[in-house]
């Protein structure tokens, strides 16, 4: 079995600094002095699933797509100069992305790090919206939504979430719809920045050749509020454990059918580190490349490279998904369901379990090699209330019995849904 003591080199690679400032801002840094680049992430715990909240005595309900819309609009400053133009002077490579549970603003740079930190903290800290710019952005994002509408894998994924969830906002596309973003106004955006873009709801995470002093000085220069903001209460709709729809089929311009088989699981309250490690390994054990099922489906021509299992976890939702391309998606679905029953009955192969644990450890350490991945890891783990070391410990501590117990509870056929995207012609 895998030795659970970490080598000194791994422990050293995991060592990071953290400070929680009086205003609630978390600052995390993993120094990589041999590296030329710095990657910084300034992120807020506000994503597409935060559609209802209470802040300052007001209850607010948002249309789908506001967090993503806000991400686009944050780059515009009051003086009309957008943040990309400021970054152009330093040469930093900047971007932003919105997920289900947070929005992240990032840059990678090899020089003028202090100036780049100033740009990052300034534009994210000083929102500026007008009716005209909001209207213009509605046109641009409508085109982005059009692009996603043609993306068969994304359509299949969201269709599955619509089947699994009755009410939870994870069922709505992160970008929203052309109709939902049309409801967005500058006032609504300001309401969201007041509630979520305050330091107590945010984290600044960085990796590379810089110091904690540089990060703290940048925070000081940014003139962020000194005190913690009034808390925002996130509200989620009631969500039963039953699924909303058993099966859905639709057509798109694809050459081969795409499918997704999903299982709705009981959401985890509190620390999810252990559950996530177990969910991760379950997908691999059932139909990853080390499984006999994968080889059979691949060699019989039932699945293509890229077929596999994964899990998703956010506030109030947890699901497994098995997806890929197949000319006989029903056969693949049946084979996965049979394999779940077989492994429940016969038990999990201890040798396969051990090799999968080793793979998960190797992947986690390999991620410590790039500044982008390290900073991303610091940010993700912070918002999930843990550290990268705790994630590695969860992998090391996971036992075969833990996974077999989870297999008995999870992947229940009654809570499964199936989606097929069929070719138009």
């Amino acid at each position: 079995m895998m030795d659970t003591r970490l080598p000194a080199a791994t422990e050293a690679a995991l060592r990071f600094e953290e400070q929680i400032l009086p205003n609630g801002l978390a600052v995390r840094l993993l120094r990589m002095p041999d590296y030329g680049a710095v990657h910084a992430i300034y992120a807020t715990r506000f994503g597409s699933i935060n559609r209802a909240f209470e802040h300052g005595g007001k209850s607010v309900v948002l249309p789908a797509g506001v967090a993503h819309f806000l991400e686009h609009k944050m780059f515009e400053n009051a003086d009309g100069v957008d943040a990309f133009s400021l970054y152009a002077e330093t040469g930093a490579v900047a971007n932003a992305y919105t997920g289900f549970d947070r929005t992240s603003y990032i840059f990678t740079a090899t020089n003028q790090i202090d100036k780049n930190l100033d740009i990052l903290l300034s534009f994210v800290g000083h929102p500026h919206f007008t009716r005209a710019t909001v209207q213009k952005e509605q046109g641009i994002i409508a085109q982005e939504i059009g692009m996603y509408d043609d993306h068969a894998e994304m359509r299949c994924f969201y269709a599955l979430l619509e089947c699994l969830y009755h009410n939870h906002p994870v069922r709505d596309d992160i970008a929203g719809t052309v109709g939902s973003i049309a409801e967005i106004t500058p006032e609504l955006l300001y309401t969201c920045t007041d509630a979520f873009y305050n330091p107590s709801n945010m984290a600044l995470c960085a990796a590379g050749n810089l110091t904690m002093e540089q990060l703290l000085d940048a925070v000081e220069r940014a003139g962020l509020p000194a005190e913690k903001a009034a808390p925002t209460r996130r509200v989620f709709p009631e969500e039963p454990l039953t699924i909303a729809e058993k099966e859905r089929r639709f057509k798109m311009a694809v050459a081969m059918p795409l499918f997704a088989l999903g299982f709705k699981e009981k959401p985890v309250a509190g620390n999810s580190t252990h559950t996530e490690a177990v969910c991760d390994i379950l997908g691999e054990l059932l139909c990853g490349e080390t499984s006999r099922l994968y080889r059979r489906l691949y060699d019989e021509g039932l699945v293509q490279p890229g077929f596999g299992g994964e899990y998703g976890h956010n506030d109030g939702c947890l699901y497994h998904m098995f997806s890929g391309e197949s000319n006989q998606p029903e056969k693949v679905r049946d084979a996965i369901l049979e394999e779940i029953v077989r492994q429940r009955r016969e038990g999990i192969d201890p040798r396969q379990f051990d090799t999968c644990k080793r793979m998960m450890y190797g992947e986690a350490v390999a991620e410590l090699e790039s500044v982008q991945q390290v900073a991303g890891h610091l940010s993700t783990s912070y918002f999930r209330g843990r550290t990268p070391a705790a994630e590695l410990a969860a992998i090391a501590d996971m036992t075969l019995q833990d996974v077999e117990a989870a297999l008995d509870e999870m992947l229940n056929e009654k809570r499964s849904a199936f989606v097929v995207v069929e070719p138009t012609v």
Partner: protein
Amino acid sequence: MQRYAIAPGAFLTEVPGDKFKRGKISIHLITPGSRENATPLALLPHVLDRRCAAIPDPTELARRLFALYGADLSSESYVVGANRVLSFSIAGLKDAYALGGENLTGQYLELLCNILFEPKLAAGVFEADDVAIEKDKQADFLRSEMNDKRGYCLRQTRRKLYGDSPLGIESAGYLEDIDPLTAAGIHADYQHLLQHAQVEVQVCGIDGQAAAQAVAWRLEKLPRTPLPLATAPPLGKPAEYKHYTEPMNTVQGKLCIVSTGAPLPDGKGEAVMRIASALYGGLPTSRLFMNVREKQSLCYYCAAAYGYYGGTLTVDSGVEHAMAARAAEAILKELEALQREPVGPEELAGAKSYMRSIMDAGKDSPDVLMNWAFNEWLRGTNRSLDEVLRLTGAVTAEEVRDALAAFSPAVEYVITGKEGA
């Protein structure tokens, strides 16, 4: 970075990798590309990386890689200029990160050499099942190319541009050539490749001497007569601007315009084109992004890329179906503006600064360092990242204007709505 001969037509490059957590070894086999060898050599890596004589069960091979802490074994076949490259790589944790103090890097080397040089055979040729399974997969892959509309539009544009020329060989081969392939035929292609390919081995964070010995020992057993690399001239000025449309059931249209006319660049010429294509459509503040997307809202994305071997400048864009014609006009108008007037000092400085960041940050990635060294060797230029950075810093606005002035639009390909709207 050190490069030395290990056998006739075979070299090894040691890429510095002390700071990385993983070590990586790549073995590249390079041979002149042709329509005849395109499909069998596109299929070959998939047949080889299923299993090997030492590990004849594909699932056991996957488990072996997982036991090596998820070591990543990869293989691919692709076209660079007029040559075909088959790359076989393995990357995994360095020994210091092994939980039980194992020697991992030695095992990576052995496994990679087994995959490439000691395949699982039956009666002296590849297993018929392996070939049959991978033929089906390759055919499915080629049929599925339209699933990714953006990539499909780019590939269709390339096909219209190059036609049957040596620069137009398909990396993934040809659907109509798959059916006649046999286990014996592909095995013969494999042996031909081992005998006649140029071999470039690269290591990063792994003992170069051990890799040199392991590969040289296997090459010595072969009757090696390596062929020189193939060359093909860039396309030159187009005789006419050709337009193509393809109706498809899509929400967003795709528009691709490729311009040609640039000569094969000299030392500084490529640095000039890096800056020129960034200014045109490679930066978040590029002319295409700021003017075609932000000011005119004619598209969602609009990016330009320079092609070294063909001397091409390709723009691809996601557009509303009804806006495609206006977007195409605006894209070419931005090129004409850059061909007329040198860019201002701030715009040029921004592009140089951005390129410096990208290239400096590349030094933090083993993949970037290894790809850089390999591509420089393929081009025969063998320059370091720092040398090219120096050349990039010296690019002038007039050089950018003159380099772009060489281009004229050659092919436009549009994916329209179902009714051709």
